[in-house]
Structures are given as structure tokens and as C-alpha cells.
């Protein structure tokens, strides 16, 4: 069987500062087959693909094509070796035409270095006819649908005569019908002897298209088998099978009345028909994969993004929230997932960042009360064990965990009733994580409400009283603490199970 292997990676390792992204990866793709990579967010799938495509260099290990060792320094070199990658989030210039896009970076030139547009037109037409695509070479990309553009990316890969095509979540943005079209194309490519590496979270699709499945977890290959030897349940178990290592400072507190009710929340194309409620003293989890609409629902609730319809009730009263100020007035605050983008004013001091949402408490009677401000900030920093050289230090020089805690401190000064935390522990150290968990428990004890949006299942399972799971923009399941399991959450999240029963 050895002559059948098209691409092989052996003992690949890759570290980023403070984290080992890939650990001794072995992985092989057969000629003319579809090899699916599964794994949770952060399992290392994208890193591995970027190494194969030459975007990253491995720290150690070797890549073989047709069993010959190769070194891939950049994507252009990858292309000459016959490797093309179609990215999860396609970047393209909307004003550019089909033909310009197809030959971008590879335009044929004439003697004097000017572009041979005639040849471009001719070859584009040939490709479009050959692939049976009905649009003209001069159509701008902005007039095509996402799936058309994706098709274009695929024929671009074909035009390079690629025999290894990497597809990173190609179905995340297209409709069911378009998925079928894509699968027809993939089967066609397979028949021509092209090898495809396919990354996806959607396990039902995976089982339709895969020949082989490899599961990654925490940067290692868990198992790799032909599809026939696996089923959805097994794959899910393999994906989440890691043991819960962190201990969580979870305490049971009495649950009170409804604090927040959200009814029929809608925003077309992002989320629809979202209903949930949370009671005083409850820590509520929102699980789901990236792109399932969790973050969007929370941002709309907080007034950062628009919604088209829906009712929000706080303490039983219907409230109207169209901007952040109103949300804060009603005692609801949110810690955004992207700290550097939505959390901090990088060049300003820790002090200013801490009081930013509470300016009235330090600016009154027509002046800034410096002593009051310093005292207020010092107290909350001490209480939350935030380490900073001085409170006048620019926040950007702090560690990620301390920055995150300063952003939290900012909201704690508001004494909120409802605290929404979107990926609160992403990219921060274990100590800071524990402090944040501790804070959640303390708030719950005071009868406040904490909502955690998180991709880290151990975290939601460890801390929450109840979990909603979202997939494809809507809530697919609600699980109480006594029924928590990673497998169950994953089944709701991958859309293989909905509250109505097995799909």
C-alpha cells in the first residue's frame, strides 16, 4: 500500500510562545481520497494545515510528497509542489472580476512585462467551460454568492494543477444545496486522483464525504481510521476525551427568581428564534462551536450589534436596549471575547482603563478627584489580585491575564446584576483563570447572574448550573448540571442532536 500515499507528515512539532500547538504529529493522505481532520477549536488542525501550506515552519519533523522529503518554505512553493489551500474565511477583493481573481499573482505576461489579457480571457473561459460554471470572466466577485466564489477558489486550485487540496471548513458559510454541489465537485476531483484534506466540525457532513478520518486533540493525533471503522459517537468521544484536570471553585447557591428573560431574539443570517432565561444566583453557560451565533446573541443583547426583533426582560420588566449605555443602566455588562479589540485602551494607564465605565464616580463637582480615583482603583486591583507595577502603567504592558482582570475590574466597579463573559479565560494563565472562576462564584453568591460563553467545555461544565448549546444560529439544547457531559454538549453543538431528539 505504500506507493498509494500522496502526502505524509512525520513527527511534526510546533510551539508558540507558552504553548505547544502540535506534538509529534504523524498523518498520511492517500492518493485520490478525502481525508477529514476533526477536533475541537484549538486542537491544532489549522496550525497543521498552515504548516503543510508553508505559512508556518515546523520546529521539527518532516513532510513527504510521494514519499520524497520536501521542505515547504512558503505558500508559493507549496503551490509548485501541487498543494493548494482554500481558507475558512476567504479573503478576496469584491471589485475584482472572475478572471482577475483566477490569475491573481500568476498573470501571464508579454515581452515587455505587460499583462497578456487575451490569454487570461481565453484560459478563464476554458476553465469555466471545463468546470461547467455559468458565469462570465468579467463578472465582479461581489456579484457572486459565497459558494460561487468557493467554486472559483477550487477551480483556481485546479488551474494550478494541484493534486493536494486543503479545505478548511468549506461549508461554514454556504447553504445545504450548495454543500451538495460542493460534494459533487469533491467526488469528481477524487476520481481524477486529487487528494483532499477536509477540515470540518459538521460531523454529519464528515461522514458523507470522508474516506479516512483523523481526530486531533490538544495538538496530538488521537486516532486515525478509515471511515468504515468509526461512527459519530466514537468521533465525538475521541474529540473531547481529555480528562478534566482543573478544579473549579464551584459552590451551590440558592437560585432565586428570573433575572433575565430573552424571547424570540432574531437577527437574520446571524441567529434566529433564540429564547432563554436565567435566574438570580445562577451561572449560565452558552456552549457551541465558533460561528454558532453565541457571541452575536450576547453582543446584540448588550447593545453592541443590532437585532431585528425580540423581547428582553430584566427582573420581569421589559427593557429597551439599543446601545451599551442603556445596557449598563440596567445593570448588564459584558466582557468581550477579543480583549485587545473591545477591551482595553492600550496606551492609557491601568487607572484610566479601570474607571472608564464609571467616570461619574471620579469626576464630580466639576473636577477629577485624583485621590478618590487612586483609592478606588487600588482597592479593586487589590481585591482582584491584579499585578501591575503602578496604576499609572500603560495597560498594554501587563500580561494577558492581568489585562483581562483589569477589564473585569472596570465592570465590577459598576456592581452589575448581570455579567456576560465571552471567552473570559482565553489566552490567560491558570492563576488568572482561577481568580476569574472565583469571582463568578462570589457574584452568584450575591444573587447576581453570570453568563459564560465559552468554547472550553471543561470550563462550562465545571462552573455552570445550566448550559444552553447553540448551533447554526439557534439554541439546539438545554442541559441541567446533573446531566452535563462533554459528549452530550458536543452532539448538540455539531447538530447531530436537537432538543427534539436525535437528528
Amino acid at each position: 500500500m505504500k506507493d498509494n500515499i500522496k502526502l505524509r507528515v512525520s513527527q511534526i512539532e510546533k510551539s508558540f510562545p507558552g504553548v505547544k500547538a502540535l506534538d509529534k504529529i504523524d498523518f498520511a493522505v492517500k492518493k485520490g481520497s478525502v481525508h477529514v481532520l476533526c477536533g475541537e477549536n484549538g486542537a491544532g488542525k489549522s496550525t497543521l494545515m498552515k504548516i503543510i501550506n508553508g505559512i508556518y515552519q515546523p520546529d521539527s519533523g518532516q513532510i513527504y510528497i510521494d514519499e520524497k522529503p520536501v521542505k515547504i518554505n512558503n505558500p508559493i512553493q507549496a503551490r509548485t509542489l501541487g498543494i493548494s489551500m482554500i481558507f475558512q474565511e476567504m479573503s478576496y477583493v469584491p471589485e475584482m472580476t472572475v478572471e482577475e481573481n483566477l490569475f491573481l499573482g500568476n498573470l501571464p505576461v508579454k515581452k515587455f512585462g505587460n499583462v497578456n489579457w487575451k490569454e487570461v480571457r481565453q484560459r478563464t473561459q476554458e476553465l469555466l467551460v471545463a468546470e461547467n460554471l455559468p458565469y462570465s470572466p468579467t463578472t465582479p466577485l461581489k456579484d457572486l454568492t459565497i459558494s460561487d466564489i468557493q467554486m472559483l477558489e477550487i477551480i483556481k486550485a485546479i488551474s494550478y494543477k494541484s493534486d493536494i487540496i486543503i479545505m478548511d471548513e468549506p461549508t461554514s458559510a454556504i447553504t445545504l444545496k450548495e454543500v451538495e454541489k460542493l460534494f459533487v465537485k469533491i467526488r469528481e476531483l477524487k476520481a481524477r486522483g486529487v487528494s483532499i484534506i477536509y477540515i470540518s466540525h459538521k460531523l454529519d457532513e464528515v461522514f458523507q464525504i470522508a474516506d479516512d478520518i483523523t481526530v486531533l486533540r490538544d495538538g496530538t493525533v488521537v486516532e486515525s481510521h478509515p471511515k468504515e471503522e468509526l461512527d459519530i459517537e466514537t468521533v465525538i468521544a475521541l474529540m473531547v476525551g481529555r480528562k478534566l484536570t482543573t478544579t473549579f471553585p464551584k459552590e451551590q447557591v440558592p437560585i432565586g427568581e428570573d433575572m433575565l428573560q430573552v424571547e424570540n431574539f432574531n437577527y437574520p443570517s446571524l441567529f434566529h428564534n433564540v429564547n432563554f432565561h436565567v435566574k438570580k444566583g445562577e451561572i449560565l453557560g452558552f456552549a457551541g462551536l465558533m460561528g454558532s451565533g453565541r457571541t452575536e446573541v450576547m453582543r446584540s443583547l448588550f447593545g453592541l450589534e443590532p437585532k431585528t426583533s425580540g423581547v428582553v426582560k430584566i427582573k420581569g420588566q421589559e427593557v429597551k436596549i439599543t446601545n451599551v449605555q442603556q445596557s449598563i443602566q440596567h445593570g448588564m455588562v459584558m466582557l468581550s471575547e477579543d480583549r485587545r479589540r473591545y477591551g482595553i485602551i492600550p496606551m492609557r494607564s491601568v487607572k484610566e482603563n479601570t474607571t472608564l465605565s464609571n467616570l461619574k464616580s471620579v469626576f464630580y463637582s466639576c473636577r477629577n478627584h485624583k485621590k478618590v480615583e487612586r483609592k478606588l482603583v487600588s482597592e479593586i486591583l487589590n481585591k482582584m489580585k491584579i499585578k501591575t507595577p503602578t496604576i499609572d502603567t500603560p495597560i498594554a504592558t501587563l500580561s494577558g491575564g492581568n489585562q483581562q482582570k483589569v477589564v473585569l475590574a472596570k465592570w465590577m466597579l459598576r456592581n452589575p446584576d448581570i455579567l456576560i463573559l465571552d471567552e473570559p479565560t482565553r489566552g490567560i494563565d491558570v492563576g488568572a483563570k482561577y481568580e476569574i472562576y472565583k469571582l463568578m462564584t462570589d457574584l452568584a453568591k450575591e444573587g447576581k447572574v453570570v453568563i459564560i460563553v465559552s468554547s472550553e467545555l471543561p470550563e462550562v461544565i465545571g462552573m455552570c448550573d445550566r448550559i444552553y448549546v447553540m448551533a447554526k444560529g439557534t439554541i439546539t439544547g438545554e442541559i441541567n448540571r446533573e446531566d452535563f457531559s462533554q459528549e452530550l454538549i458536543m452532539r448538540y453543538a455539531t447538530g447531530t442532536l436537537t432538543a427534539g431528539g436525535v437528528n
Partner: protein
Amino acid sequence: MKLDNNFWTTVKKKYSIYLILVGLFIVCSLANPNFLSVNNLTNISRQLSVTTILALGATMLIISGMLDLSSGSVLALAGVFAVSTYKATGSLLLAVAVGIFTGIICNVINALMISTFKAPPFIATLAMLTVARGAALLYTEGQNILQLGNFVELGQGSIGVIPIPIIFLVAIAILTWYLLNHTPFGRSLYAVGGNEEAAIASGINVHRVKYKVFIINGIFVGIAGVLFMSRVNAGLPNGAINYEFTALTAAIIGGTSFSGGIGTVGGTLAGAFIVGFLDNIMNLNNVDSYMQQIVRGTIIALAVIYDIRSRNRRANSMLGKVEDQGAAKK
């Protein structure tokens, strides 16, 4: 001693601009005996007050991540309106009010374009630069308005030994300092310029902040217009050309960062005086005026490079402490 080291770097960072100003003052005094004469110093301060008032408005705008290229033109428009109001009514108060009102209207339009319609500040205020200059020329039919009578007192007169424009400048500088350091609005300006999305997510009404800062800028520009026309004793529709650049130069030299979020009143004042002293000493020593432009441009370039370098140093010192988030989520 680590502490001493830190202390000196802080001093150097915070006060270097003032040290440069003092050094330049000493050099100028030695270079030309006339520099220190009362007459010359009063003259410098009269000339400087107009552009420095513009620079203070510019500072607030740059801190909040925007800028105003239209201030020179709006100054001229506000100035000619004020002058003709004075000629028609003889009321100085009314003339000043009309000047300020004109500045406010133009800057509300700037804010409308930038905050409501999301036009880039550079382009929006460039449009206003052209429109306001055109309006000033249209209104005066391209002619200078002369014979202003007592209007001249505002720009040329003194209270005691202190020239009136200096009194305006000091008042506006104190007001700007107060706004930046003692009001929630000032704190919000730094936040909006430092990271607008984070400011929105922190509950700051960014729209209101942007309109407010433009309106305040409009008031400053209007006052500067009245002072300018009064000092030259004429309504010049073609006056104050390129003053916006002098104002920006002062702010940049004074350490206001074009990437937003950083800037002080003291720095801008020092920057304005550095530019003023340099111009003055070159004039006194008969340096060719074309040469003066080259010197000025070189100084702007150096100030910007200094700003970017110190920002990069900050960024580098951060890099070591921030985890890689992009590729490795865990």
C-alpha cells in the same frame, strides 16, 4: 539603582520637550541680541497666539483619533463674517459672536460628515477647507475689507503690559487643560482615540464625544479668526492660508500621537513656541524664507519619526508579555 533609572527615564520622557524649548530659547538669545527685546517677544506672542489656539483644538481632535485640515479656511470665513458684522453694527461683542457661530457651524458639518456619515476625517475636513475658503472669497468678492476702526484693539491692544491675544490664548489653554484632565469628556477623548471599539463597548457615547470636540474646536477657530483679522487690521478672505499645518506641526512636535490616545496641552504649547522661536530667529538672522520651509518640514519629519519609534519601543516591550492568540487558543 533601578528606581533612579526609572525616575530619569520618566523625566526624560515627560519633560524632554520643555528642555528642548528652554535650550532653544537660550540658543536664540545668544544668536541674536534682538531676540530678547520686549518688542520682539511681544510680537512673537501676538503672532503665535492665533496658530496656538488652532493647535489646542487640533490637539483635542488628534487625541480622539481625528484631525482638522479646515481650521485655516474656517478661520478666514469666521474672520470676514466677524469683520463685516462689526462694520455694519459697530458691536464688538456681536462680531465675536458671529465669528464663533461660524466656526461652530462649519465644525458641526465636519462632525456630521465624520461621525454620522463615517467619512474619513482627512477627506471630510479637506472638503471643508476648500468650501470655507471659497465661501470667504465669494462673500467678499475676493476683496479685502478695510477701515475697521476700533476692531483693531482686540488684536493689537493690551491690558496693562499683556497683549490681549495672549490673554485669549492663556484662557483657551487653561480651558483645554481643564477639559482634558478634569472632565469625563476629556477622559473619553483619550479612550475614543486610543481604541474606539473598546470605548463603545465601555459605554462611552462616541457620537456625542465627536460632535462635542468639533464644536469646541469650532469655538476656538472662530475666536482665532476674530483675533487674526483684528491683528492685521483687515478682513482678509485669503488670510491664514496653511495655518492648519502650523497648528498640526505644533501638536505633533508637542508629542501628540497621530495614532490617537496621547497628547497634552503643555506639550502642544511647547511645540507651538518651538516652531515660533525657530521662525523668529530665522527671520531675525535673514534666513532665506524658502530655506525656512525646508527647516520646518525637516522638524516635522523628525518629530513624527520620534513618535513612531517610541511607539514601536512600547509595542516591542509589550510583545514579550502577550501570549500568541492567533494560532494557539489554549
